């Protein structure tokens, strides 16, 4: 933290919180509203990255490396999840010839 220049440290930390919150909320709304499966995945990634940003900012401003370590974990998990998720989307595409999640309604009561 001491390596970070002074003028950067003058940015109040709470601005990072606002940014991360905004990004997260956009991600959530995107997941709920969009119908294209790939866009939904991108919004999920957006949520994850918002959290990453927040964690990194906390690590910087509090001089605690644990935040950055957790960021690495999240990135690894995100990568794995994307791999599996894309595989599922490929399978869905093979059966329904589309990536519209509105078509997947067979488990209705």
């Amino acid at each position, binding site marked *: 933290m001491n390596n970070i220049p002074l003028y950067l440290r003058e940015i109040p930390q709470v601005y990072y919180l606002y940014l991360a919150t905004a990004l997260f909320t956009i991600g959530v709304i995107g997941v709920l509203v969009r119908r294209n499966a790939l866009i939904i995945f991108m919004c999920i990634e957006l949520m994850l990255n918002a959290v990453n940003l927040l964690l990194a900012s906390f690590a910087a401003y509090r001089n605690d490396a644990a935040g950055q370590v957790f960021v690495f974990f999240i990135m690894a998990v995100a990568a794995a999840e994307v791999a599996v998720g894309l595989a599922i989307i490929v399978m869905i595409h093979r059966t329904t010839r589309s990536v519209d999640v509105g078509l997947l309604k067979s488990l209705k*009561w």
Partner: protein
Amino acid sequence: MENLLLALLIPLLPLLGFAINGIGFKQLPKTLAGVLGTLTVFSSFLLTLVLFGYVLTEKADYSLVKAYDWITITDAIKISFSYQIDKLSIVMMLLVTGVGTLIHLYSMGYMSHDKGMGKFFAFLNLFIFSMLVLVMGSDYVTMFIGWEGVGLCSFLLIGFWNQNREYNAAAQKAFVMNRIGDLGFLVAIFLIFQHFGTTSIMDVAFKANTEFKFSDPAIFWITICLFIGAMGKSAQIPLYTWLPDAMAGPTPVSALIHAATMVTAGIYMVVRSHVLFSLAPETLEIIAWIGCATAVFAASIGLFQNDIKKVLAYSTVSQLGFMFMALGVAAFSTGMFHVLTHAFFKALLFLGAGSVIHAMSNEQDIRKMGGLWKKLPITFWTFLIGTIAISGIPPFAGFFSKDEILAHLYGHNKPIWIAAMVASFMTSFYMFRLLFLTFFGTFRGTEEQKHHLHESPFTMTLPLILLAVLSMVGGFMGLPAVFAEHHILSDFLGKSAGVVAGHHMDDSTELMLMGISVGIAVVALALAFFRYGSGKNIPVADEVMTNPVTKVIYNKYYVDELYGFIIIKPLHVLGDIAMLVIEYLVIDLIVNFIALSSRVAGLGMRKMQTGSIGFYMFAMVIGMVLFLAYFSLASN
């Protein structure tokens, strides 16, 4: 001391027979089951003889053989399961095992065609076990175990042919009426415990003699309750209707249980508690009158019955009334004497009836019999001996015991004596009526039955002969004072059955009484012979009976119908109310409501499964929001 340990073995052998036959009756061949069942009881009889030899030489009044400490609750209640061997119990044990052996032997022949024969012997052995526990028990509670056990075995054996609903009903009736009596016995046990602090028979007797005065109300209630128990078991008014119905069971059952042993349990119990009863003169008065009423009432019904076993059943109820009359005038050993002689000739009569039924291919209506004396000689002669014995004609057994009862009654209470004379007259009459209608005259059955008529096999006739011999000589153990110096039985029983308040009658009165009783018995015989001897005056068929008096008596004075109206119908109504109100309206409503509500909830909840992923994710987000809100608020 080893002799006393025998006492433990005597009831256990029949129990073992019950276990083996009960578990293996499907696998064991029938004859083996029968032989096994008979051998266990016969070995018990031999052991009892050994014990009898011991009792003869023993100086003490009684010996206790303890099996184990049974109920111990601190120092307040100490009940041990132990047997009391004294003169009274050894006499009963000899009776139970001796007559029991003969009846087991008879059953080997009688039940040989029945596929449940092994089961039959198992139940019979269980009965012998229970009866032995009853007579050997040194404690009222131990006696009660045997008491209940014989009631159970009576139920099992009456309803032995359990495919027939009427037999099941008869068995149930016997059991329920027994239970009503048992309630009295239980209350008596509770009262005994309350007043004496112990239920051991000897301790109670000792305390009663020392601490309680004559005619104490506590003793009165105890003895009344004990007598209620005896009423149920020994078929006195009003709890007697089960015994005629119990004839639904196989004939050896009727002979063993409802003639010789179980029904005498009530009398045995009263004699055992003679100390208590001697202190309650009001109870003795009640016992005498109830015995009297039962004797006359049952004898009157027996006059008109047409089923060979029913006549004998009512005869049993009547003779039990005689025994209770004896007890009612505190002639306890006389009552025991009549128990013994009655066991001999009544078992003989029942087994003889079984022999007749067996020969007649299961026909029991005497209107369809007749002229059997030529085809069934042994049965006829033994049945004749039994009939003469029960009518009280000397020198056979029944004369001595019945006459002793009559003498005691004359000394105490003349009206009862007159009623007893009437009952004796009726007894002689209906027994000879039975004999003449069954064995004399011409055969009135079908051709097929006539074809099958044959004398019974040896296993059945041997017991008949042995019992006939006993009926002839059994009376000599109780010769009255006018003939002999010593009354063997009452001298033997001595203190164990209470000192008989000797009837201080001079010889001439006694001879006169004897003459009167023999005279009326012979007159009854003559009347019966006159009316039925030559095969005329056969009783009419049921449908044709028009004489109203005959009809009422033939239908047992409609007592069963009366009980049905007063007791059974209200119980049925109560049961119906319980069913309609409590079962249908309350319980079903609650249970069905629970089921219905879970179904309705399920119907509602399933609408949440819309299948659309967007909705699921929305639900997830809402859930997360709520969760986080709760946490942030809770931590504040």
